[in-house]
């Protein structure tokens, strides 16, 4: 119970911190919208571009939340938090936030592009938003600074947008599953279960990696007690 309370407090504090960053909040919404609007000329593919563009904003926010507070995090662990609680505190705040943005953004795309299966657009974009959180956490925990993290993020998501969905590279990239879901929403046929499972597997794997890296980054030695 006390662990859950600590997670909820961390979620609340990350919420307070991010909601005071008005420009960042604006960009969180504006970035995927810009991707979508800029690619409207390419027909249905604008929905895929916009959906995957969500990964930039949500994983960017996640990345920043972890890299901007390494010193505080270590002090919080010294004070009594477990590294996993710090990680889950971020997830508990970012997941609902990502969901809200995903729903709002999906609505815009469904109205603007009228995909064949709109519910699948919602599902695909939501999958992008949720997967972006463990992705941002894993990258943020693995790299030393914001610059390196941002470059990794641009590299991975950029590659996701640049390579064709049938290429071998695309199939090993983290957002391949959600990308498939969004593509499936544009026609009557197309896989659903496979991409969903792939997304879940990637999410769990990335969360596990983030847990490993965060534990190493904020490691605190618990000294033995004097007799």
């Amino acid at each position, binding site marked *: 119970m006390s662990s859950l309370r*600590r997670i909820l*407090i961390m979620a609340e504090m990350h919420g*307070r911190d991010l909601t005071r960053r008005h420009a960042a909040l604006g960009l969180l919404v504006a970035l995927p919208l810009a991707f979508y609007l800029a690619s409207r000329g390419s027909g249905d593919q604008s929905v895929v571009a916009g959906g995957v563009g969500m990964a930039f904003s949500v994983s960017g926010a996640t990345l920043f939340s972890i890299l901007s507070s390494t010193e*505080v995090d270590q*002090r919080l662990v010294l*004070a009594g938090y477990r590294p996993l609680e710090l990680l889950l505190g971020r997830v508990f705040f970012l997941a609902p936030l990502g969901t809200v943005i995903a729903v709002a953004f999906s609505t815009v795309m469904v109205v603007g592009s009228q995909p064949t299966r709109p519910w699948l657009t919602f599902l695909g974009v939501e999958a992008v938003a949720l997967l972006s959180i463990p992705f941002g956490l894993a990258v943020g925990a693995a790299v030393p600074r914001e610059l390196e993290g941002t470059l990794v993020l641009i590299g991975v998501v950029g590659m996701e947008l640049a390579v064709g969905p049938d290429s071998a590279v695309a199939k090993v990239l983290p957002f391949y599953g959600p990308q498939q879901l969004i593509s499936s929403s544009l026609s009557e046929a197309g896989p659903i279960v496979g991409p969903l499972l792939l997304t879940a597997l990637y999410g769990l794997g990335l969360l596990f990696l983030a847990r490993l890296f965060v534990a190493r980054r904020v490691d*605190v030695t618990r000294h*033995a007690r*004097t007799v």
Partner: protein
Amino acid sequence: MVAGPDVGHAHGVTELVASKVTKRYGSTTVLDRVDLVVHAGEVVALTGENGAGKSTLMKICAGLTRADDGEVTVGGRIGYCPQIPGLFELLTADDHLVMFGRAADLDRAESLRRGHEILAEFDYPLHEKRVTRDLSGGTRQKLNLALALLADPSVLLLDEPYQGFDRGTYVNFWNHCETWRGQGKAVVVVTHMLAELERADRVIELQAHPSRSAAGDER
């Protein structure tokens, strides 16, 4: 290298023991078999030139940095106040108190009650609800110190905690060291302020290891 003799103390209870602590960064040895013993109800001032390893020793004692060799044992909860306040820029003092208090299983009301009490002792402007980014350096440092004290630790590791304090708060800080001594806490203060050394029970001077250059950074 022995950082300071274990002279014993009236309270007798040993709260912090660092034994043969060694730390190297690459080919540079920062600490070489350093010993440090601090008892309950004792204030120890830790001095030494830049690069002597004072901050490194404090971080090792706090558990934030791993020693290459040697061991540390502690009597109870550690309160650590770093030289540079590690705070969330867009959270207020109250937010920090609630967050750090929860780490010690204090509820929101108790965290704020205790935190405000400590901050008031250091003349923190409690009526201001500004985020820490907008606070002066000295005010941030007061919050930094309060977070170290919040869970009522038995060992206090304070790494130049008075940076940015005005004269009155600085004197007040050393008065508090005497209060903490009276409460039976083991207090280690990294300091360069020679004028106040007489207020410590013991002064330990760390010497820079010969492998360090004279222009080495403080670690």
